[in-house]
C-alpha cells in the first residue's frame, strides 16, 4: 500500500526547476536516440550516465529514467518510417507501422505509437505505484519451468508470423533456432562458431535485427527501382498525429490487454520489452476482428506493440526496485546510477528508501506527459525523413546500419555477422520466407535451451513440471492460444457462421 508521508516527500523532491529540465532533456534525448536504428535504450543511457554522477541522487536517476522512457517510444519512429526498429523492442511495431507509412499514413502511425506508448507507460507506472512489491514477489515465482513455457508461448508466434505460408514459417523458425544454438553453452561446450571468437557469445541481437530487417529492406528497395511508396509530396501533419494519438490511447481492450502483457513480461528477468511486444502483437492478432489486415497496416497492431513496449518498462522497474534485479541492460544501467549514489538495490531497498522510490515513480508519470508533447512535435518533424529521395536516404541507412551494429557491442566482427545475415536475409526474403521467424528463432531459441536444460537439472522426470500451478496455467494459455482459433474456425464452419477467422 501507499505510504502517503513518503509519497509527499518524494513529490517534494521531484518538483524543482532542475528536475523538470532534466526530465525534458532526458525524454528528448531518449526519443532522438531511440529513433536512430541500432541505438538501443541502454546505449542512450550509457552516453549520459557519466554525466549523471555529479547530479543529485534523485536527479541522476530520474534523468536515466527519462532517457529510458523516451527511447522506448523513439524506437517506433524509425520502425514506422523506415521499417527498421530503432531499438530491439520496436520490432513488432514494424509489422503494421511500416506498411501504414508506405500507404502514406506515417503521421497517423506515429500518433498511434505515441498514444499507445503513453497509455502503456501510464498503466505500467500505476502498477509500479500500487503493486510493486507483489509484482516482485510474483516475479521470483517464475522459475526455469515457467520461463521455458513463456518462451514456448513466444515461439508459438512463429506460425502467426508466417503470413499464410506455415511451412516456410516453420522452416525459417527452425533455421533461426539452429542459429541461436551458436556459441558457448553454460556447460562450456563450444558450438557452431567455426573457431571464430566473435561468435562465442552467439549471434548478437543488434546484428541480427539490422542484418535481417534493415539490409534486406534496403536491398529490396534498391532492386525495386527505389520505389518505397514514399513521396516528396508527403506532408507532416500535427492534426493527423493527434488523431492517431487519440486512437492509440483509446483502444481500450487492446491497450489494457497489451499493458498487462507488457507489465507481466517486463518483470521477468531476461525476457525484456522486445519479447513483450511480440507476445502482445500476437495476442492482438488472435483477438482482432480483421485478421487478414495484420501485417499490412492494421493500426491495432501498432497499438498492441507500443502499449506493451512502454508498459514493460513499469514491470522492469518493479523487479529492480522490489528485488534489486536488473532484468535487462537498460535496468542494469539504472542499477549503476543507483549505486553511484549509494543506493544498493536489493530485497530491502524499497522499505529503506520509500520516498526515493516514490520520486522515481512519480517522475515516470511526469515524463510520460512530457513524452506525449515532445513526441508529437518531434515525430511529426522526423516524418519528414520520408521526403528525402531514396537515392540519398538508402546510403544514409547503410551508414546507420553499420554504425548502429558496431555501437551496440563495439566488436568489429559483428559487422561481418550483420552483413552475412543481411545477404542471407535478402535471399530468403526473395523466396518469401518470413524473416521475423528467423529473428525470433535466434533470440528465443537460445533462451529456450537455457531454461530447458535448467528444467531438466531441477526435475528428475519431465512430468514433475506439471506439479507447478503457474506452469500449468501458462501451459493452458499456450495450448488455448495455439488451438483456439482453429477450434473456433471449425465450430463456425460447422454451424455455417460467416465470421472471418483464418
Amino acid at each position, binding site marked *: 500500500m501507499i505510504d502517503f508521508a513518503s509519497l509527499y516527500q518524494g513529490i517534494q523532491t521531484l518538483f524543482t526547476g532542475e528536475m523538470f529540465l532534466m526530465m525534458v532533456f532526458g525524454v528528448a534525448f531518449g526519443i*532522438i536516440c531511440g529513433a*536512430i536504428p*541500432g*541505438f538501443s535504450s541502454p*546505449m542512450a543511457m550509457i*552516453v549520459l*550516465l*557519466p*554525466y549523471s*554522477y*555529479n547530479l543529485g541522487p534523485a536527479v541522476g536517476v530520474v534523468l536515466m529514467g527519462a532517457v529510458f522512457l523516451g527511447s522506448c517510444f523513439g524506437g517506433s519512429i524509425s520502425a514506422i518510417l523506415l521499417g527498421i526498429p530503432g531499438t530491439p523492442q520496436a520490432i513488432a511495431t514494424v509489422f503494421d507501422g511500416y506498411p501504414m507509412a508506405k500507404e502514406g499514413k506515417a503521421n497517423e502511425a506515429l500518433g498511434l505509437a505515441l498514444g499507445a506508448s503513453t497509455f502503456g507507460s501510464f498503466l505500467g507506472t500505476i502498477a509500479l505505484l500500487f503493486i510493486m512489491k507483489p509484482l516482485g514477489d510474483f*516475479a*521470483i515465482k517464475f*522459475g526455469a519451468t515457467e520461463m521455458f513455457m513463456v518462451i514456448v508461448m513466444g515461439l508459438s508466434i512463429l506460425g502467426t508470423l508466417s503470413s499464410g505460408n506455415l511451412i516456410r514459417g516453420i522452416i525459417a523458425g527452425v533455421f533461426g533456432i539452429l542459429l541461436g544454438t551458436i*556459441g*558457448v553453452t*553454460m*556447460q*562450456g561446450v*563450444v558450438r557452431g562458431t567455426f573457431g571464430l*571468437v*566473435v561468435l*562465442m*557469445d552467439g549471434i548478437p541481437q543488434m546484428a541480427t535485427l539490422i542484418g535481417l530487417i534493415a539490409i534486406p529492406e534496403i536491398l529490396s528497395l534498391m532492386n525495386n527501382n527505389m520505389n518505397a511508396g514514399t513521396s516528396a509530396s508527403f506532408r507532416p501533419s500535427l492534426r493527423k498525429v493527434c488523431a492517431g494519438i487519440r486512437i492509440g490511447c483509446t483502444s481500450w481492450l487492446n491497450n489494457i490487454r497489451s499493458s498487462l502483457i507488457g507489465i507481466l513480461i517486463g518483470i521477468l*528477468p*531476461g525476457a525484456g520489452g522486445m519479447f513483450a511486444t511480440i507476445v502482445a502483437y500476437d495476442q492482438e492478432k488472435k483477438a482482432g476482428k480483421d485478421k487478414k489486415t495484420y501485417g499490412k497496416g492494421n493500426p491495432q497492431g501498432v497499438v498492441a506493440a507500443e502499449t506493451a513496449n512502454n508498459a514493460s518498462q513499469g514491470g522492469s522497474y518493479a523487479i529492480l526496485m522490489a*528485488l*534489486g*534485479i*536488473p532484468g*535487462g*541492460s537498460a535496468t*542494469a544501467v539504472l*542499477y*549503476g546510477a543507483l*549505486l*553511484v549514489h*549509494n543506493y*544498493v538495490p*536489493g*530485497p*530491502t531497498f524499497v522499505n529503506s528508501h520509500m520516498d526515493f522510490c516514490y520520486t522515481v515513480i512519480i517522475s515516470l508519470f511526469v515524463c510520460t506527459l512530457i513524452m506525449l508533447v515532445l513526441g508529437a512535435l518531434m515525430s511529426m*518533424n*522526423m516524418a*519528414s*525523413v520520408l*521526403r*528525402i529521395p531514396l537515392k540519398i536516404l538508402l546510403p*544514409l541507412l547503410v551508414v*546507420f546500419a553499420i*554504425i*548502429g551494429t558496431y*555501437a551496440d*557491442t*563495439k*566488436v568489429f566482427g559483428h559487422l561481418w555477422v550483420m552483413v552475412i545475415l543481411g545477404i542471407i536475409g535478402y535471399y530468403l526474403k526473395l523466396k518469401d520466407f518470413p524473416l521475423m521467424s528467423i529473428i525470433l528463432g535466434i533470440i528465443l531459441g537460445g533462451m529456450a535451451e*537455457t531454461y530447458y536444460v535448467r528444467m531438466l*537439472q*531441477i526435475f*528428475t522426470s519431465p512430468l514433475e513440471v506439471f506439479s507447478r500451478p503457474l506452469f500449468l496455467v501458462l501451459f493452458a494459455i499456450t495450448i488455448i492460444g495455439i488451438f483456439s482459433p482453429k477450434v473456433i474456425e471449425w465450430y463456425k464452419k460447422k454451424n455455417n457462421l460467416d465470421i472471418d477467422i483464418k
Partner: protein
Amino acid sequence: MKKLVALLLSCTMMIILTACNEKQPTSSSSAASPAGTVTSAPSGSSVEKWPTDTVEILSTYKEGGSLDIMLRALAPCLQEELGVPVIVTAMPGGNTIVATEEYFNNREADGNTIYATLEPAISYMNIMLGNEHTYNEFDWINVQEIDYVSILVPENSPFQTLEELLAYTKEHPGELSYGSMTMTSSSGPAFKLLIEQLGLDVKEVTYESGAVLRPAVLGGEVDVAGVGAYADWMYFGAEGGVRCLGYFSNNKLDGVWPDAVPLNDVTVPNYGVEFPELGDQRLLGVSKEFKEKYPERWEILYDAYQRAITSDAMKEYYSSAPSLLQNNTPEESLDLIKSYDSVLSEYKYLFE
C-alpha cells in the same frame, strides 16, 4: 523543412559517433569534465596530460552480476579522480574469451581501456578453452574483492545450520537441488568439489550469473545456492529472504552472516574432509604493453585508482561489508591470482 531534416540527421549522426567513439575530447567541454573535478595529472611540466578521453572498464561478465556491480560502484569514484568520464562496458560471452580477445586485439594499449574479470575465469580460459592469454600478460591494478563462495538457503528452509543441511543431503540422496554458477565463477568448482568430496547426490543446477541465481534461491527454485558471502550480504542483508549457513573460507568472516560458519568447521570433524578456500577474485588490470609503453600513464591511473578506492564514497559503498574491499599492490595481486590458479589447477578435473 530540408534544413530541419539535415539538422536532425546531423544530430543523430553526432549522437551515434559519440556512442561509438571512446575518445571524447574533454579539454574544452565542461560536460565531459564533470563538475570541474579534474584532479588526475599531478602538476609539473614533465608529466604527460592523460587521460583526456573517456576511460572504459571492459568487463568480461554480464550486467547485474557481482563484478558488474563492483565496477559500477567504482566508476564514478574513478571518474572523479581521473577527471574524464569512466564507463563500464559489459561484454559477456564465450566464458570471458570474447571480451579478452577484444581487449587484446581491438583496444589500444593506451590505458583508455581497463580490463576487469574474475579469477577463476582466467584459469578456466587457459585450462579448458586453451586461450593463450594468461594472467602474466597483465599488470594487475588490484584484486579489489575476494568473495568466498557462500552456502545459502531460502529463509523458510528447514535447515538452520550447515551441519543439518549436509547431514540431510547425505541421508536423502537425489532430493535437494544445489544451484551454482558456471565454471568461470568460483561457485561452479566449489559446489562440484563439495558434492564430489562428500559424496553427495544432489540435483546440480547451473546458472549463468549471480544476477539469476540470487532470485532463484530467493524464490525457492533451488534448495541451496552458492554465490559470494560478502556480496550476498550486501545484496540481501540480514532480512532479505535468505540465510547463509556457511562459506568456503577457513576463517569466520567479519561483520557478515553472524550465524554462518566456515565450511571446514563442519566437514573436518564430521566427514574428515578439508576444503581449500574458494572465492571469486574480482580484479582490474591493464596489458603489460601499456605499462611498458606509457609508464607515466600507469602511474596516473594507479594513483587515481588508489584515491578512488580510499574515497569516502567507496567506504560508504562498502560500509555493510568493509572486509570485502581489498587494497593489494600489483605484485600482491599477481601472487593472489597465481596462488588461486594453482589451487584450481589442482582440481582442474572439475572443469571437465
